[in-house]
């Protein structure tokens, strides 16, 4: 089961300007075939479906603990989309067409269906699909798939980075390039444990260092890519240290397993959008709600 912590993995910058078309591009990193919803659901189903969890515990622990991290990545990308997506409408009477800019933005659906927030789909508005999940049950095949999935995710992040310079999008991508790099290495090491084949020699794919990206550099320098968390406070999933050991081939630094989760940062607040009737609670309704909530406590 899962326990939820009301924190975001990084301190996302929240500038006063948005770019709805950039938010539409960032959707690919959430609900695209190589987005965070795919990494989450792949590892989640693989961990549920894992055969011989006891015998192959370090591998099970790896897939299971990374699942929890991916949940936080979905949360991070969704929050990024919500921040980047702002500033395309204005507050006015419906007859003044306050959503008029929405019809010329890439993601019209976000203006109509989600009040300018994230949707479970890709940059072209296609829904995220369950058949993006690969869970063959063959350990080596699943690990190889996960390695490939993370390399694809890294490629897409780099391309979206090249499409937008919005500070929120770039901060998120910088961080996720580093964490994604750690996951690529984790699956490469797991494949080495399972088969004796060292595929870290292929890395990085694509062949450029994370440090090329301005917002990834500080996370690299602070060693974010050398750590795997267990995402558990009861001593579970610790056997990932039988896989996550030795040094990181990209920087020669020691690989570390940390128990628990990182401390996290505040979840950004989202303003009301009266022109979208979201949340649709004005001062009068709020007063009535407060009365009901506080009565008979």
């Amino acid at each position: 089961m899962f326990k939820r912590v009301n924190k975001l993995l990084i301190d996302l910058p929240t500038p006063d300007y948005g770019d709805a078309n950039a938010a539409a591009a960032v959707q690919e990193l959430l609900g695209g075939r190589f987005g965070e919803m795919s990494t989450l659901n792949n590892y989640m189903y693989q961990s549920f479906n894992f055969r011989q969890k006891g015998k192959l515990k370090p591998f099970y622990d790896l897939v299971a603990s990374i699942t929890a991290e991916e949940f936080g990545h979905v949360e991070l990308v969704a929050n990024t989309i919500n921040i980047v997506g702002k500033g395309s409408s204005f507050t006015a009477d419906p007859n003044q067409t306050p959503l008029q800019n929405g019809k010329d933005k890439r993601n019209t659906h976000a203006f109509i269906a989600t009040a300018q927030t994230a949707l479970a789909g890709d940059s072209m508005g296609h829904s995220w699909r369950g058949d993006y999940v690969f869970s063959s049950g063959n350990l080596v095949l699943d690990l190889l798939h996960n390695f490939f999935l993370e390399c694809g995710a890294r490629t897409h992040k780099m391309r979206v980075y090249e499409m937008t310079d919005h500070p929120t999008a770039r901060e998120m991508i910088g961080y996720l390039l580093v964490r994604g790099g750690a996951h690529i290495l984790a699956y490469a090491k797991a494949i080495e444990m399972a088969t004796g084949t060292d595929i870290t020699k292929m890395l990085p794919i694509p062949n450029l260092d994370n440090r090329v990206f301005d917002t990834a550099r500080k996370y690299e320098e602070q060693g974010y890519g050398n750590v795997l968390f267990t995402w558990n406070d009861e001593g579970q999933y610790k056997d990932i240290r039988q896989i996550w050991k030795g040094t990181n081939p990209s920087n020669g630094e020691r690989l570390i397993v940390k128990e628990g989760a990182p401390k996290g940062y505040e979840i950004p607040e989202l303003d009301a959008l009266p022109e979208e009737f979201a949340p649709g609670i004005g001062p009068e309704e709020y007063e009535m709600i407060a009365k009901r909530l506080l009565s008979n406590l």
Partner: protein
Amino acid sequence: MNEQQGVEMVSSFDPYVYQTLHGVVGRHIVIQTTKNPLQGRLKQVLPDHVVVEVSGSPFYVRIQEIVWVTVQ
């Protein structure tokens, strides 16, 4: 022969936009720019740009990029 030619500065000016916007300085306005709408308080109007304060941050907008303005 080497004497440099003087560079002539050409500037577009929308006199009536400039004048009208002066009348709403300090008001809460929406400016539709060629890119995005901006919603905030009109702080200043100069011949070629205006300053709109949005959540405490000044945005300097070229008058040439303004499509329409409405007062809230």
